């Protein structure tokens, strides 16, 4: 039984495009963000609406390839393509854009993107294991705060920051609760539906309303699960998806995994747990800027070197979600994730005791058959053991 609430989530990206436009007409400012390192608390505290600009669709890629090399990650090309073709309502609505120096392709793309929108690039430290890293990142936060204040003509005060921290933490907790329904075996929600539900948070204009909807969905799923209903048969191999971000439009690997007989029970990538696991410290005695900086620096992304947090998180999730196999999705030409894949492979082999496969692909449909063979063989292997 598919939750009724899913209907609402399916249409949210389109519906909210209108809401954003209305909000703009009523004087609200919109701030676009590309990555999980963008601190939405600062945007909320500035009274603006944070939206996600991460490109997850194939359509604008040919246009992007007129400027960018073909041999570049599809996420970068899609994000850039949306901007140059002016086909993303959220990019169009953005008054200001926050970007980060994550991977090389992205940070250089941002230099080109700066022609289209007022944009600020935060400088991320290379790693977190140096004494100055947090201080550096805190200064970057402060600089972003100044830029936002300048551009949006507001002042961001401590009180607003604390309220934004609480709101964002509640949103994270609600999403995490939603993801955790799939700890049940068999999982009550398909990986495809889970992706649809968690992806739209980036387009949730009214955070309070969004949190309410997520809570309702979670409640509905718990009821369904309580009746012992699941879209999967008992024994369906349970998959943990890790690696590059996935969103609506580039969900082909998730779809194939489930079509070929698997159940995607958890997303470790920054579409999922990676960004929800860590909350900002709400301690009123602390400087909120420092608490925010500290939390964002915990995100175990492959752009951070070294990145042991990802391995620890994978181990934890394999146990918590009773995972049978780990699928590491790498977008083509994403060097950080592709290279880190070798470390993940060894870690999963030596510490988790479950099979691992790395899949490298892009947003197009040209390799569907080859992917299907790999994925089916992987599922057959999980079923055999």
């Amino acid at each position, binding site marked *: 039984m598919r939750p009724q609430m899913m209907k609402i989530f399916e249409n949210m990206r389109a519906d909210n495009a209108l809401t954003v436009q209305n909000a703009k007409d009523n004087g609200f400012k919109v701030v676009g963000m590309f990555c999980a390192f963008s601190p939405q608390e600062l945007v909320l505290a500035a009274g603006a609406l944070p939206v996600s600009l991460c490109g997850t669709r194939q359509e604008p890629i040919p246009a992007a390839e007129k400027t960018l090399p073909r041999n570049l990650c599809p996420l970068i090309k899609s994000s850039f393509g949306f901007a140059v073709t002016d086909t993303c309502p959220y990019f169009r609505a953005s008054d200001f854009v926050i970007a980060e120096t994550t991977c090389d392709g992205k940070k250089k793309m941002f230099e080109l993107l700066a022609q289209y929108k007022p944009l600020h690039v935060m400088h991320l430290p290379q790693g977190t294991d140096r004494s100055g890293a947090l201080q550096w990142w805190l200064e970057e936060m402060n600089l972003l705060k100044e830029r936002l204040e300048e551009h949006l003509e507001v002042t961001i005060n401590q009180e607003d920051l604390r309220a934004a921290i609480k709101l964002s933490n509640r949103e994270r907790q609600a999403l995490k609760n939603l993801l955790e329904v799939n700890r049940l075996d068999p999982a009550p929600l398909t990986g495809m539906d889970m992706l649809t539900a968690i992806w739209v948070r980036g387009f949730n204009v009214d955070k309070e309303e969004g949190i309410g909807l997520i809570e309702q969905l979670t409640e509905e799923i718990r009821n369904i699960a309580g009746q012992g209903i699941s879209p999967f048969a008992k024994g369906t191999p349970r998959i943990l998806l890790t690696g590059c971000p996935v969103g609506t439009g580039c969900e082909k690997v998730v779809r194939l995994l489930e079509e070929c007989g698997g159940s995607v029970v958890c997303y470790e990538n920054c579409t999922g747990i990676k960004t929800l696991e860590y909350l900002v410290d709400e301690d009123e005695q602390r400087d909120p800027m420092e608490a925010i900086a500290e939390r964002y620096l915990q995100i175990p992304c492959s752009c951070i070197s070294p990145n042991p947090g990802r391995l620890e998180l994978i181990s934890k999730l394999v146990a918590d979600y009773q995972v049978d196999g780990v699928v590491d999705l790498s977008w083509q030409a994403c060097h950080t994730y592709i290279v880190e894949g070798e470390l993940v492979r060894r870690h999963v082999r030596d510490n988790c005791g479950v099979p691992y496969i790395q899949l490298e692909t892009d947003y197009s449909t040209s*390799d569907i058959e080859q992917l299907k*063979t790999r994925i089916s*063989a992987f599922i*057959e*292997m999980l079923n055999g053991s």
Partner: protein
Amino acid sequence: MYTVGIDVGSVTTKGVLLNGRDWRHVIRPTGCSPRQAGLEAFEELLGQAGLVRDDISCVIGTGYGRISIPFIDKAITEITCHARGAHHLLEGADMVVDIGGQDSKVILTDGRGNVVNFAMNDKCAAGTGRFLEVIAAALGADVSELADLARGAEPVQISSMCTVFAESEVISLLAQGVDRGRIIAGIHRSVASRVAAMAERLGKGGLILFTGGVAKNDGVREFLARELGRETLVVPESQLAGALGAALLAREKPVRKER
């Protein structure tokens, strides 16, 4: 109990009919219709044995064309089928290296026919039969002669992995007057090392069964064995590993599609 495995590959379609310890097979070109080739292979098997569809407990389809054959009870990937078939063909084999016309794959098994890990190259022609064909043509030879032409020759270094660049590299080596046998040996080594690199990442295998169209080329086999430092064998029926594995799996886990 009769079971059938049909392996629809990109170049040839193989069928195996299994009954107890006995099995018979057919091989035919896939041509432009995988569906037709699969059906014909099946009917030929039935005809030879004087059986009808209802006598067969389970038919499993495999190979890239497995999705286009409607009469099967179930489709299983060539990875799983190859592993199972290899176990039957070569007792003790725990790795299968398959180099076909369009792709190559390495499968690590538990030594009892179950897949433990695998890797595939289906994106590029390097390290496939196609690569050998292109180079053979550039050298004015037939693929089937390559092994003999290269026998005993010291391989030259071929630096290009890409088929197109390797072809021009070969032409310029010929122009420099380098011996044809040495060039072919170099090409054999290049295919072998490409596939060996894939195998190394999967972990140690003990005994390797080499299958696929390229397994007929003893030059490639020798380099493969040398690169991997392990015994690498070819058996006469190795081309049938996929179809045989499918028939074996059909017997072990029979399913019947409603029709």
